[in-house]
């Protein structure tokens, strides 16, 4: 991986006047990799992204792209492109003008500008929209154009700041898929910021879980999900039951809780609620250590009703 590091952040600290910010951040992103910064709002993920994009000056440290330090350059001189959560497009310009603006500034001839915009429109599946104004399009369409506009300039690193969080659930997952496809097809290096762990899991090659301005854990979605290094990560990624027993915390994923009517188990309790959540059922059980959640299949759930005594077995668990 050392061979083709595209973006490297070295001991970067970015502080605001009030003392908030991120401290001593180091991160390497390989060419063609999609890395997600994941964390609750205020954890500093956007600060890192904006530092890379050049919209905030980092206080100390280096940001290297292809080995060159870009941390002192203004945003227009950086080989990065950013897509914001909203207000990406300029409302007084048509889609064509919006997309061609960057090329125009680079003095690309008119015919080539037009050709490249049309190609990009086809890529983001927005052919035929070139004469529309942003106000005439839906939020999802606007974000497609925004992503297309960023890609047009062939950036070394694409920065995405919660680009889909203003969209509704269905369009969001569709956009995710398409982004992933375009990203792998074009082999683009992407840093993605989100507070949505599901989105992070679905999209990323690697996830960086952040907490209060620093990295809590870094790894592939599978690693972070299956081997959370701290209680914070375990809590943030996926669903998790925490059982405080004998001075330690046992963490069990609901899908690893096996519910049975009789027999031995790690914990005993009684069924509290049974909730249909689509292709699986969420079953909550009252135990002496609090409520434990379990995901079971529909035919399994049929065996239980509210109030039944049950035994719980944990297939795998973490201790913190």
């Amino acid at each position: 991986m050392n061979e083709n590091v595209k973006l490297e952040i070295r001991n970067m600290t970015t502080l605001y006047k009030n003392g908030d910010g991120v401290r001593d951040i180091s991160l390497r992103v390989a060419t063609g990799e999609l890395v997600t910064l994941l964390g609750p709002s205020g954890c500093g993920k956007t600060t890192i992204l904006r530092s890379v994009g050049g919209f905030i000056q980092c206080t100390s440290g280096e940001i290297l792209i292809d080995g060159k330090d870009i941390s002192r350059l203004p945003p227009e001189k950086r080989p990065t492109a950013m897509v914001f959560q909203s207000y990406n497009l300029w409302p007084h310009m048509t889609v064509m003008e919006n997309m061609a603006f960057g090329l125009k500034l680079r003095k690309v001839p008119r015919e080539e500008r037009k050709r490249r915009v049309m190609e990009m429109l086809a890529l983001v599946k927005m052919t035929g929209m070139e004469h529309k104004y942003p106000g005439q399009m839906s939020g999802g369409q606007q974000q497609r154009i925004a992503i297309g506009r960023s890609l047009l300039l062939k950036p070394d690193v694409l920065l995405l700041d919660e680009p889909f969080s203003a969209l509704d659930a269905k369009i969001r997952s569709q956009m995710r898929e398409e982004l992933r496809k375009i990203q792998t097809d074009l082999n683009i290096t992407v840093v993605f910021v989100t507070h949505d762990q599901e989105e992070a899991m679905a999209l990323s090659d690697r996830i960086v879980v952040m907490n209060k301005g620093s990295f809590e854990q870094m790894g592939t979605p599978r690693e972070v999900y299956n081997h959370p290094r701290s209680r914070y990560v375990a809590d943030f990624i996926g669903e998790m039951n925490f059982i405080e027993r004998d001075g330690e915390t046992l963490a069990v994923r609901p899908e690893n809780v096996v519910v049975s009517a009789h027999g031995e188990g790690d914990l005993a309790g009684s069924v509290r609620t049974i909730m249909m959540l689509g292709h699986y059922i969420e079953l909550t059980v009252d135990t002496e250590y609090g409520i434990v959640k379990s995901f079971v299949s529909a035919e399994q759930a049929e065996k239980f009703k509210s109030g039944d005594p049950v035994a719980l077995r944990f297939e795998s668990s973490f201790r913190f």
Partner: protein
Amino acid sequence: MSYFFNPKRFYHSLGRRRFWEWLLLVAFILFFYGPLLHMFMLAFADKYEAPGVVPQKFGFQWWEYVLGQRTLVSSITLSFTIAFITTFASMVICLPAAYVLARYEFPGRKAVMFSFLLGNAFPRIGIYTSIGIIFYRIGLMGTFPGVLLIHLLGTMMMMIWLPSGAFRSVPRQQEEAARDVGASPLQTFLHVTLPMAWPGIAVAAMFAFIGSLGESEGTLLVGLPNYRTMPVEMYGVILDYPATAGAVFALILIVPNILLLLLMRRYLGAETISKGYKMG
């Protein structure tokens, strides 16, 4: 005919409350538009003698007369020239200041905003008198730059406050997006911020233009005898000519204002204006 003009029928068809509302509305309309209508009538009156309510003879006699006076016509040209230059200069000076006030936090920002209001808080003539004293000393009295300065002064509050509000309502991310695709700060301002704030700026420019066209006190003090704009001539016209000539002249003054207001109607919303007056 009497069927329709019977006040009793009229009263009952409207109902008591609405009848009084209607009367109040009529009174207001007469109060606001009466003088204007009268002026309009005067301007086209060729013969208008004492007992008559309506002129005895309508025509363009006084228009020919006013437009035949060399000094009056040249004052029209001068007024428009000054209004154009004032508006343009005011934009060049004030828009960058408005942008800074909208986008940057610095100590004394509110004080600066407020200071533009202060100029409007005193009786103008007092300020012009003290300006006059300074102008005498530095030789600006009776000069074109002197008149321009006076006019600029009058437009500054509008030109700072309204565009500042307009700039503030342009989302920062839209500017950042422009920087991101490679625009320098100046290119960003010219291609993104300025066009997006344009409605607010246009309204401010219109007010500046109208304000400059109507400016009289300062011009009277600083410009005379070399620079006589329309409102300055107006004083003379009122004193020296019959009322009908004054009416013609006043109409010429009003027409551009009405045209501008009609043109800007689209942008002239309570929102645009109220945004400008937020100290934020």
